[in-house]
């Protein structure tokens, strides 16, 4: 499996690099622009005028501080970026192999299907981890370079929460990709699902939906605003994301091992 995983890491490195460049550019812009805001308090006032549900969704943070600003303008978007990456990764590393028939080459090697899918999950998680490390480093270095106080533990907790959320979605998307053999279809579905879940979280909050309903939306388990504000993150959310990852990965491994690879 090590060989398969390294091979996939090699094949995905260029794509990953471009995602990192995009994310770093976005983060660098957000950090860099903070000190250029003429009057931060005006921005804070504007933020206060936003609907409560939207404010809660992007993080009920004090944007007159750099940590609050980072939360609203950057960290609230990070899980969306990571989730979309996860969907594209799943489509490219699982569905595409069957669609383009390269899976015949892979599965003609003495590797089990479990090893094949496990290598996809492993490298997907590894790539997400690399992106999260880069995001953490960017925030830490960016805040330090602009002369503000760095709250590295807060950033780490927020990024860790984003990582867990993106791993759960990656596992679900890899599971989907084991059922659907068309790369474009899986890409479309995963991006669509990500956006719908994202918007649904806003809608559920705006409508004061019952906790039990909101609990099933993965973005409800992302608490970067609390983390960035120095508060603790609900442990049950972290556990739920971990459990969802295991269920998604288990489904992917189980189904791929059972299905026909028919071409």
């Amino acid at each position, binding site marked *: 499996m090590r060989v398969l995983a390294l091979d996939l890491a090699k*094949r995905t490195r260029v794509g990953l690099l471009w995602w990192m460049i995009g994310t770093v550019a976005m983060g660098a812009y957000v950090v860099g622009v903070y000190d250029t805001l003429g009057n931060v308090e005006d921005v804070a006032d504007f933020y206060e005028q936003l609907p409560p549900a939207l404010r809660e969704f992007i993080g009920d943070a004090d944007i007159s501080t750099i940590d609050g600003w980072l939360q609203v303008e950057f960290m609230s978007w990070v899980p969306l970026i990571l989730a979309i990456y996860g969907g594209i990764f799943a489509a490219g590393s699982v569905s595409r192999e069957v669609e383009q*028939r390269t899976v015949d*080459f892979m599965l*003609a090697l*003495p590797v*089990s299907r479990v090893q094949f899918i496990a290598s996809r999950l492993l490298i997907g998680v590894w790539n997400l981890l690399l992106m999260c490390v880069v995001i953490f480093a960017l925030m830490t270095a960016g805040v330090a370079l602009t002369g503000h106080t760095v709250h590295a533990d807060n950033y780490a907790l927020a990024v860790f929460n984003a990582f867990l959320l993106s791993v759960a979605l990656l596992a679900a998307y890899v599971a989907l990709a084991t059922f659907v053999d068309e790369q474009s279809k899986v890409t479309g579905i995963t991006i669509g699902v990500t956006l719908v879940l994202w918007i649904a979280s806003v809608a559920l909050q705006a409508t004061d939906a019952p906790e039990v309903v909101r609990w099933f939306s993965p973005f409800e388990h992302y608490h970067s605003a609390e983390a960035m504000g120095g508060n603790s993150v609900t442990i049950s959310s972290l556990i739920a994301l971990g459990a969802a990852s295991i269920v998604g990965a288990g489904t992917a491994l189980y189904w791929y091992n059972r299905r026909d690879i*028919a*071409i």
Partner: protein
Amino acid sequence: MIPIRLDGLTKYYGPHCGIDDLTLEARAGEVLGFLGPNGSGKTTTLRLLLGFLKPTSGEAKVLGLDALSQSVEIRKRVGYLPGDVSLYGDRTGHELVALSLAVRRMSDLRIANEVAESLDATMDRPMKKCSRGMRQKVAVVLALAHDPELLIMDEPASGLDPLAQRTLLGFLRAEAERGKTVFFSSHVLSEAEEICDRVAILREGRLIALDSIAGLRGRKYKNYTLAYAGAPPDLEGLDEVEILWQREQRMAFRARVDVNEILVRLSKSVIEDLTIEEPSLEDVFLDYYRRTPS
């Protein structure tokens, strides 16, 4: 040990039959051709042998191992060439061979280099920049690089130029002479005729013949071409005689009856020239398809 043994192997895709109750064995050291037109179940059978598909019923054993539950062990010892080869576009042949050997914890490139050289395969160019034929050559190198005991190949000569086809078929024959078993599918009958010890003929997922080339021909008719003077020979009353053409004191017919019966009839006419030929495998194949009810 029997390299390949299929016992009542059946695969349905929903209501559609892939193969139905297929029973056959490939013997050690033989080249067994698997013939049939498109959609007859050749590729389905090969994919069942590699564990890509799960049978609806029946059993397949490869090198004495269960094709489904022991497929990883099987693939260590088998060289597989898929039909309609697709390889990673950004990878060169060398990189793919290195990957294939690394998974098998091997590093000896000697065989890969020999095969690549004999097929004149370009190994240092990314696959997306290679022609279909070149990709096929690289795929053949990949199938042979780890010196497998058994070769399972889906239309191996497909896409190759005539020279490379000849080299490949010679290579497969040589592998069989070294004691390896070669099981390959094709719908190009001349390939099978050239190198196979036995052939299996599939029709709509069912095995309709399994015999040596000579046996298949012997079971079937012979082709007669003759020139005569005066009246044409009288073949009336003979069963299973089919006149193919007749003009200008010449005629050709095929007959399934004993050659002596034909010669007795012909001796009653003035025969100026006579040729008796075994049917080609293509003739045999077409005859099976005409005569076997679907």
